């Protein structure tokens, strides 16, 4: 039942500890910096301090209500994250598996388009560009 924004790495096992109590199913999602172009060095992630924490807490509470989650967690990093680094995690615990899967997928869909984070790609050599929002991420929200 918590959302955090931080620069430091997180330890997934520590984040999941405590979420199993009373649950039958626990789903976790971890996002990793992926080099699609073969020349990416890092992502730089900017966010809106204050608003981010509030938005994440709201989405978590809404997921808990909607899917009757017994527990949930969101951790999102910001700052410079090299290729291969863990960007963020969400977890959803519930009595049954479909609710846990739906809870985690719901949190991810909202995070992608409705949490105030912005990613910039930094190439090897230093060239930088802002990641553009995807229509498919916006469209993913319509299923909920």
């Amino acid at each position, binding site marked *: 039942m918590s959302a955090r924004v931080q620069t430091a790495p997180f330890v997934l096992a520590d984040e999941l500890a405590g979420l199993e109590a009373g649950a039958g199913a626990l789903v976790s999602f971890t*996002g990793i910096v992926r080099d699609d172009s073969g020349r990416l060095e890092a992502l730089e992630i*900017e*966010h*809106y301090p*204050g*608003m981010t924490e*509030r938005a994440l807490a709201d989405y978590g509470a809404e997921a808990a209500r909607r899917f009757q989650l017994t527990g949930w967690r969101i951790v*999102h990093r910001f700052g410079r994250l090299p290729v291969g680094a863990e*960007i*963020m995690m969400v977890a959803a615990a519930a009595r049954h598996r479909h609710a846990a899967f739906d809870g985690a997928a719901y949190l*991810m869909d909202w*995070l*992608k*388009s*409705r*949490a*105030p*984070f*912005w*990613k*910039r790609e930094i190439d090897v050599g230093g060239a930088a560009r*802002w*990641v*553009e*929002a995807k229509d498919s*991420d*916006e469209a993913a929200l319509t299923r909920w």
Partner: protein
Amino acid sequence: MRRDILYFASLRERVGAARETVETEAATVRELVAERAAASPAHAAAFADLKALRCALDQQFADLDAPLGEAREIAFFPPMTGG
């Protein structure tokens, strides 16, 4: 009225500032956008594409036609790319 304006990501870069404090009579987000877009060529560039503009009033998402009301902190930014 005195308002704090925050810019994030590409808007912050285009405006060249993360924060401005302004005196404004604008009543809606759209009026404030028009006012700021007129402030400099950099501001005009930042606000050129209204479809790619997002706004929050006191950290709550708001539409272009939302009244500014008593909002103290008004943030402008591009579509979000979290996760």
